[in-house]
């Protein structure tokens, strides 16, 4: 369950569009340096260029694992704010297609919630650098969420 204090922090962050106190709670967010800003009804995630995130030193290019981690974390944060899950969304699986090298510059990500079931959500994530029309990677993930109200326990798994 999301503790009441964190839920309040979430709501406050979303109301003013300052997500830094929320991100400060997640050590991995600080490790890669993810940032988040509100764009109307949407969220834009940013991964500022950081030498510590380099994989291939000769291009130089951001490590593919960091790009994936940035996109997975973006999706989880997106769901924290938009899915109204009673618990922190848990990743079930994650699949990423790398389209271009991620150069040593700022990277952006945006999420799309394709389907919200009662227990599982499907999210697509797109990451780009200079040109939004030329993404460096696309990904999709399933997350387990908890319904706000407990599902009726009939001994059978509830139908979607």
């Amino acid at each position, binding site marked *: 369950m999301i*503790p009441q204090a964190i839920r309040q922090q979430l709501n406050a962050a979303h109301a003013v569009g300052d997500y830094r106190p929320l991100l400060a*709670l*997640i*050590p*991995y967010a*600080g*490790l*890669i340096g993810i940032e988040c800003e509100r764009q109307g009804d949407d969220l834009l995630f940013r991964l500022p260029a950081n*030498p*510590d*995130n*380099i*994989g*291939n*030193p*000769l*291009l130089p290019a951001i*490590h*593919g*694992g*960091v790009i*994936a*981690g*940035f996109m*997975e*974390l973006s999706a*989880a944060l997106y769901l924290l704010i938009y899915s109204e899950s009673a618990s*922190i969304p*848990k*990743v*079930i*699986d*994650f*699949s*990423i*297609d*790398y389209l271009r*090298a991620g150069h040593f510059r700022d990277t952006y990500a945006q999420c799309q919630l394709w389907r919200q079931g009662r227990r599982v959500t499907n999210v697509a994530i797109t990451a780009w650098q200079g040109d939004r029309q030329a993404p460096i990677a696309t990904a999709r993930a399933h997350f387990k969420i908890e319904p706000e109200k407990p599902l009726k326990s009939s001994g059978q798994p509830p139908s979607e």
Partner: protein
Amino acid sequence: MSDSTLMAMAERFLSALKHCQLLNMRVAQADGDGMTLVLPWSPAIVGNPQTGAVHGGALTTLMDTTCGMATLCVLPRFEVCPTLDLRIDYMHPAEAGKDIYGNAQCYRVTRDVIFTRGTAYQDDPGQPICQVVGTFMRLGQDIKGGIRFGNNLKEGGV
């Protein structure tokens, strides 16, 4: 290629990857059967502060690197092999305080593409944290950074 040459090459390769150095990753085993890397647990890679579970991004970094480096085990000469795609199925969360092992093999090598699969685990390889499949593109040796990187690996200069 002898196992000791492969092991030395893997260590030099890993030491060139900045982000992997930040995570203190190291080579546990490199031979004809595949590649095994270690990601030491640290508070910095936690994704869920409530449970202390490791973030999927750190696991993805471990497995992208392990699968990518498994190509060293099957190629006669070093080639740059960027990741085409990677899919991770999370079996259960990684526990706080315990090192994480990543193991991967190449199960098919073609002229252009290498197919890899692997798992990450803590105590028991039979109880993996995640299962991974990844596809890598063979760019050969004649691309930017390729020859220099390959020669540096051979000479130990990276």
